[in-house]
């Protein structure tokens, strides 16, 4: 009698089933906690993710089910758990710190270096390279770089590589008697100066917000400082060891930003509240990613443009989210196997329904039209395809979480119209010891 037959016969009676479970439990624990998990049959995988969007979940579940159907001997089930703590990363790290470690997780780019540095993420390079047709080289080097260490290890697949762009409410501009700024794209006049002029005029005429960054709160200060790259401003040096908040470029940028608040082009900051949503129809310009177009309907006419140029020219920015296997997962191998499947070219194309892909082969109007059906092919070409290969990832730092509140406190006076020089010098004094490590 094969073990399977025996098992099936034994489980016909409930008593036998209970006895069997008991024996199984004992023998499993005798194996020393199942460290060699592959030997103990198919496992259940858990992935933590930031989105609780039902469509996102449905797609992931579909891919997950397809995988378990094919690899039922390795993975019995895959569950996708949204972590919707008001602060996703706090929720995730809290979960990990608590020892309730998911096997895979959605990691926002801001936390990437910190997680890689802390050894929390599992190197999946060998797994990905070992899969036929995975084509790791297809992934844009600029997109993959933040998730690699010096030895070439790969710690995540940046499934969402989404450029920041400028949303324009055409109806509001028209109501304010302002010109159509879309015609300026590609000309030297398409600058932050022009856009903020229009924003200020629109605010004056309609009372609507001029230009805002909807994800900006004082605690999420990087949503605004990142735009300084058009001024050549960066918060710290490339190696992360030197504070550059006090650089002339950053001072110029922040002073400019302050002036925009003062003249009404940018709404004033209120506590740590986020500004109005573009979807409310009460905002002329909004700096946001491609995915935001999903929340827009036909209630007003809008356009999707690349970010304007600043004094230092045009510097596109992408925001990323990666999917990683966690080092403390008990089923690293199985999880890495699923990661390779989830992000292979075919599934990457499915994911690009919602998330702009990091794969060069998918950067085309047809694929991206799925991600943002509300955009025109021209908008996709100019604001995404032309932009992504050269775009920089938002500034990151391996110990960001340790000094982010110091920067928040230091920048607060800037938003309120205080002296920029004093503020940024203070920030560097505060955070330099941490940066130098």
């Amino acid at each position, binding site marked *: 009698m094969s073990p399977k037959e025996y098992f099936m016969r034994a489980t016909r009676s409930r008593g036998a089933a209970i006895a069997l479970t008991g024996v199984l439990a004992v023998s499993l624990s005798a194996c020393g906690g199942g460290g060699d998990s592959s030997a103990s049959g198919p496992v259940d995988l858990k992935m933590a993710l930031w989105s609780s969007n039902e469509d996102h979940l449905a797609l992931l579940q579909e891919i997950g089910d397809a995988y378990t159907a094919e690899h039922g001997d390795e993975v019995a089930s895959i569950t996708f758990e949204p972590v919707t703590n008001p602060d996703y990363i706090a929720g995730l790290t809290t979960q990990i710190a608590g020892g309730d470690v998911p096997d895979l997780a959605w990691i926002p780019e801001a936390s990437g270096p910190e997680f890689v540095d802390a050894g929390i993420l599992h190197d999946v390079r060998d797994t990905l390279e070992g899969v036929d047709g995975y084509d790791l080289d297809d992934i844009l080097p600029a997109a993959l770089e933040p998730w690699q260490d010096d030895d070439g290890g790969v710690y995540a697949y940046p499934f969402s590589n989404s450029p920041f762009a400028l949303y324009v409410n055409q109806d509001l501009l028209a109501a304010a008697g302002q010109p159509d700024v879309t015609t300026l794209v590609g000309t030297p006049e398409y600058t932050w100066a022009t856009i903020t002029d229009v924003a200020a005029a629109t605010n004056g005429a309609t009372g609507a917000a001029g230009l805002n960054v909807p994800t900006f709160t004082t605690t999420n200060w990087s949503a605004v400082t990142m735009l300084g790259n058009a001024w050549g401003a960066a918060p710290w040096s490339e190696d992360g060891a030197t504070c550059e908040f006090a650089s002339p470029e950053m001072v110029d940028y922040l002073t400019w930003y302050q002036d925009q608040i003062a003249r009404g082009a940018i709404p004033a900051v209120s506590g740590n509240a986020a500004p*109005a949503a573009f979807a*409310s129809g009460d905002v002329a310009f909004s700096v946001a990613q491609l995915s935001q177009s999903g*929340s827009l309907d036909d209630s007003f006419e809008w356009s999707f443009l690349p970010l304007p140029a600043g004094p230092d020219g045009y510097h596109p920015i992408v925001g990323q989210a990666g999917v990683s296997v966690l080092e403390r997962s008990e089923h690293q191998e199985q999880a890495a196997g699923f990661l390779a499947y989830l992000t292979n070219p075919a599934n990457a194309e499915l994911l690009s329904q919602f998330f702009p892909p990091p794969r060069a082969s998918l950067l085309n109007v047809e694929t991206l039209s799925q991600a943002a059906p509300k955009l025109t092919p021209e908008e996709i070409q100019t604001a995404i395809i032309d932009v992504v290969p050269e775009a920089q990832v938002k500034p990151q730092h391996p110990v960001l979480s340790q000094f982010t509140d110091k920067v928040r406190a230091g920048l607060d006076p800037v938003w309120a119209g205080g002296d920029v020089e004093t503020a940024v010098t203070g920030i560097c004094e505060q955070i330099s010891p941490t940066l130098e490590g």
Partner: protein
Amino acid sequence: MRSDAARADRNRSRVTTITLYALLVVLSLPFLYPTLWMFFSSFKPANEIFVQPPALLPREWTLDGFAQVFTAQPFLQQYGNSMYIAAIVTVSSILLSAMAGYAFARIRFPLRNAAFTLMLAAMMVPTEVTIIPIFTAVNAMGLNDTHWPLIILPIFGPTSVVSVFIYRQHFLSFPKEYEEAARLDGVSRAGVFFRIALPLAKPAIAAVGIMAFLRSFNMYFEALIFLRTPENFTLGLAITRYQDFYGEQMWNTQLGAASLTVVPILVVFLIAQKQFVQGLAQTGIKG
């Protein structure tokens, strides 16, 4: 002459009365206006929230704010979570604190004073101070993202001491004659408590019940630390989470959800406010 004086007196008292009413109306504003504004603003379209000059009533009434309350999050389930947690906390506190308060007031047992001093001292250890070990313990027991910490902490933790104190003050002034009569009839100590002292402690029960309910209902810090899936959220946490999928704020939806959490309790309070306030007034904190 007399009538003149009386009239002057009456006039003066009328002036005083009018001044007093005017004063009370003005003082009412900061207490009443925010709640009214929240309620009416949940009927405004999102772009009317910051309209100038500010208006209490919507120019254009809409139910948009409520439309997404239930679709963006499992709001009904979250409502249920808050309610059942608050119900367990309230009922348990009413009973357990009463037993402790009664014993501290009426029964002599070893280390009684030491135990009571310990209770009072523990009031100075809020959850914020001890959150890290509590967090690690909750994780070690696998109770993260469950409601257990939100139930156990307010019932048994240091915040429950106020309830014990209220009951103790109440039972200290409870007439001994009642108890003695019952004891002479052969009723046991426990019987005296359950059949005589507790049923007669209605004001204290009301006060403790209200305070326990509010304590549970206002619990935000602990929920923030321990809960992470929307299905498990309590209302306080849920209100802060009204953002669209891209992180943008849904103002009118948030206000709609806030109104839905506030209005029913406010209505219950208005109906029962006499008992409510009288119960609190007789807490014994009045010295």
